[in-house]
């Protein structure tokens, strides 16, 4: 018996389905791309066409300048056939519109997870495990030292910090990714504490997603904000942009804040441990829930996490991709 060609494999352009002749989250321009979510390491410009969950489309327009004619949207769970391969998108719980992509042919089911988290964040459709034979998974936080506390506890801490800053006449600047983390933060802020000011790039993403921004203030050059909470993308930290909010205290909202050394290195005063990726237990549980006998790990601590799975009797391997990075800098 000779080996069948795999349903999905990695090519220099990215993850590829030869039977359907489509790429998933390609890192180079291709003719037809299926997109799990609109973060920059998964959705890149200059492809011929993009297929994604509906909520993701406006972000692709905003960030990649994609034209409406290039975009096609699907709903979660909706089936579509491409050259005989059945595709469907399933909630990944990572950011609004994020999806796992299921490809099925000849009774074989492959799922690419994109990025995901298992805790419900209140703004993204919660992760739903999809039964499959082969699970291609991220493992950004695939080490047991990464273990998240419930977000309610983290937000309670964040509010305490905000109130303390306010009492000291200091503004509270929170760095959060414009897509995902920022919406999650805004949705959980207790607006009775004080004013909330939103950086333009965050504002635009919220608008594109159709989120209600009433009561929030959009930052402009002469806004002043003693005691307010400012939501800014990480790129704004350390830049002159923040000077207008002086004196301020700077916090970061990220899974990497779990490690004190990394927290110190970022030069933020406060690190709140809140991630849009699954923690170690989340990853382990997610893999188990798929029932997959083979697991391919795309990014994160792929070497130790694959060994961990192998010791549990799962055929796990590393897959060399261009998503995220090994560690340190969080893929959004």
């Amino acid at each position, binding site marked *: 018996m000779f080996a069948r060609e795999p349903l999905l494999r990695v090519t220099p352009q990215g993850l590829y389905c030869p039977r359907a002749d489509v790429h998933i989250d390609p890192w180079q321009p291709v003719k037809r791309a299926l997109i799990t979510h609109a973060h920059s390491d998964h959705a890149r410009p200059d492809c011929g066409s993009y297929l994604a969950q509906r909520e993701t489309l406006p972000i692709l327009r905003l960030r990649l300048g994609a034209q409406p004619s290039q975009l096609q949207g699907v709903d979660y769970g909706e089936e579509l056939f491409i050259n005989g391969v059945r595709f469907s998108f399933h909630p990944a719980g990572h950011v609004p519109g994020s999806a796992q992509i299921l490809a099925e042919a000849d009774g074989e089911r492959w799922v690419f997870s994109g990025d995901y988290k298992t805790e419900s964040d209140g703004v993204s459709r919660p992760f739903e495990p999809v039964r499959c034979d082969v699970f291609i998974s991220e493992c950004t936080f695939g*080490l047991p*030292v990464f273990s998240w506390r419930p977000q309610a506890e983290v937000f309670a801490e964040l509010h305490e910090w905000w109130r303390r800053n306010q009492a000291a006449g200091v503004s509270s600047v929170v760095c959060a990714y414009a897509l995902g983390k920022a919406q999650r933060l805004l949705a959980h802020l207790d607006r009775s504490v004080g004013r909330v000011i939103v950086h333009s790039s965050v504002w635009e993403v919220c608008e594109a997603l159709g989120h209600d921004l009433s009561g929030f203030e959009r930052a402009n050059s002469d806004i002043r904000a003693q005691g307010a909470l400012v939501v800014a993308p990480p790129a704004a930290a350390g830049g002159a942009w923040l000077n207008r909010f002086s004196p301020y205290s700077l916090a970061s909202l990220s899974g990497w804040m779990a490690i004190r*050394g990394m927290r110190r290195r970022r030069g933020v005063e*406060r690190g709140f441990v809140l991630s849009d990726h699954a923690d170690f237990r989340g990853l382990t549980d997610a893999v188990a829930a798929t029932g997959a006998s083979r697991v391919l790990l795309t990014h994160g601590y792929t070497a130790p996490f694959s060994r961990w799975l192998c010791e549990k009797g799962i055929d796990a391997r590393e897959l060399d991709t261009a998503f995220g990075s090994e560690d340190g800098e969080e893929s959004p």
Partner: protein
Amino acid sequence: MTDFVSLYFALSETSSTSQKVRLLTEFFGAAPQGELGWAVHLLRGEKLERGLSSSQLRQLCAEVSGIPPWLLEESYQVVGDLAETISKLAAGKASGERVSLQKWVELVRSLREAPLDERMAKVAEAWRHMSEAESLVFNKLLTGGLRIGVSRGLVVKALAAAAGADEAQVSQRLLSLRDVREISLPALAEQGSGSENMAPYPFCLAHPLEAEPQQLGEPEEWIAEWKWDGIRAQIVRRGGRVAVWSRGEELVTESFPELELLSQKLPEGCVLDGEIVALDGDEPAAFSRLQQRLNRKRISITLLKQIPVGFIAYDLLELNSEDLRNVPLGVRRQKLAAILEKAGISKRDLRLSPEVEFCQWQQLDRMREGARENGAEGFMLKSRDSLYIGGRKRGSWWKWKANPYSVDGVLVYAQRGHGRRAGLFTDYTFAVWKDGELVPFAKAYSGLTDSEIREVDAFVKAHTKERFGPVRPVEPQLVFEIGFEGIQASRRHKSGVAVRFPRILRWRKDKPASEADTVETLRQLTS
């Protein structure tokens, strides 16, 4: 009332010195009896005796958490701190009671006497009742020091504020209160009793000279001395006794019996500041020789004969039981010369560090390059009028080292760093060529800028094949100029040499690996 764990985290989250002092003062002011002394002890960087080794702690953590040892190791490599790693894997549930530092210390100290399985059980039981944060601080006590970025000076400042005494006084008292349990705010505010007190003075420390020496002003306002390659120490002669203190404020009298003996000849009520050096014949030898005398429980007669030591005095802090620290250095040195002259001690054993004569800075600069031939590392420059001020006050004392030895080495292994550098590949091993092969000769951790570190980190991640285990072999491509202070032949090292204080001087982006130095270059430096 704040507990020690909250203090620890509050201190580690602020970079403001005044905020740190405020936090410490508040804590000291409210600390219960029995806790204050230990807090001071630990905050000053002292360690408790270890009851479990790192590998025993790892083993216990693996058992308690059900995480396989290899995965614990991988985690540790990323976290870069064993105490923190364990706290994340083996934390239990906080008891909700205020943490008692005293109880923790007692527990850690009680481990010494217990058999291994009992020690393991005690620690595992303690972990069960701790939150992650509590466990981290507790594990710090188990694994060594707190390393929290609080200098001894800050502790003294805060203690002085809490005790309502002045800093110099508190600093002195701390040195004489040898038993941690004696430390209390009233005890620190008390005047010490004169002759019983064998405490040294807080050492006056120098800064490295970074500017051109011409900017210091006229040469005649400065005293230049050789910077001796030994251990900084004070000899305290009071009440018929002698105490020798190292710069770490550690009592080292027993390690140097010959100094104790000869110092009996010094006049009563005097304190000398200077350098303990190993002797080679009559001359000061390199530090590597002195090293063989250090960290030994007992000094054998053979060792005393093999590696004799002497004292090179350069300052006099007390004479006739009178504190001379507010007398100008020039005068202190004259008095020092006079008492050494009168003491009748051989110049080989106790000598005055000579003043190096010079008329122009340029002239001194040229002599600096010959420092190693004189058994020195460079020059100390001290303002002739300077008073003796404890700590590292800028401006009147400078160290001006000779340029280090340097060779170009190739990066061959990388390991993840610790603390602020956790997760980044910042610990490097460098090699030089030997018969067409690269042999490692030095490990270095410092010398690169943050952006260079990120660049090297990215290179390491992209150019390693072997991804398991802490040490990553790297494709030999990057060349760095490695500086070091000393070098000697060594059979233990594959390269045949051991280097002292290696560090990265610069990244030789202009050089391919093939043009790095050879073992031969290193060997020539040893001669």
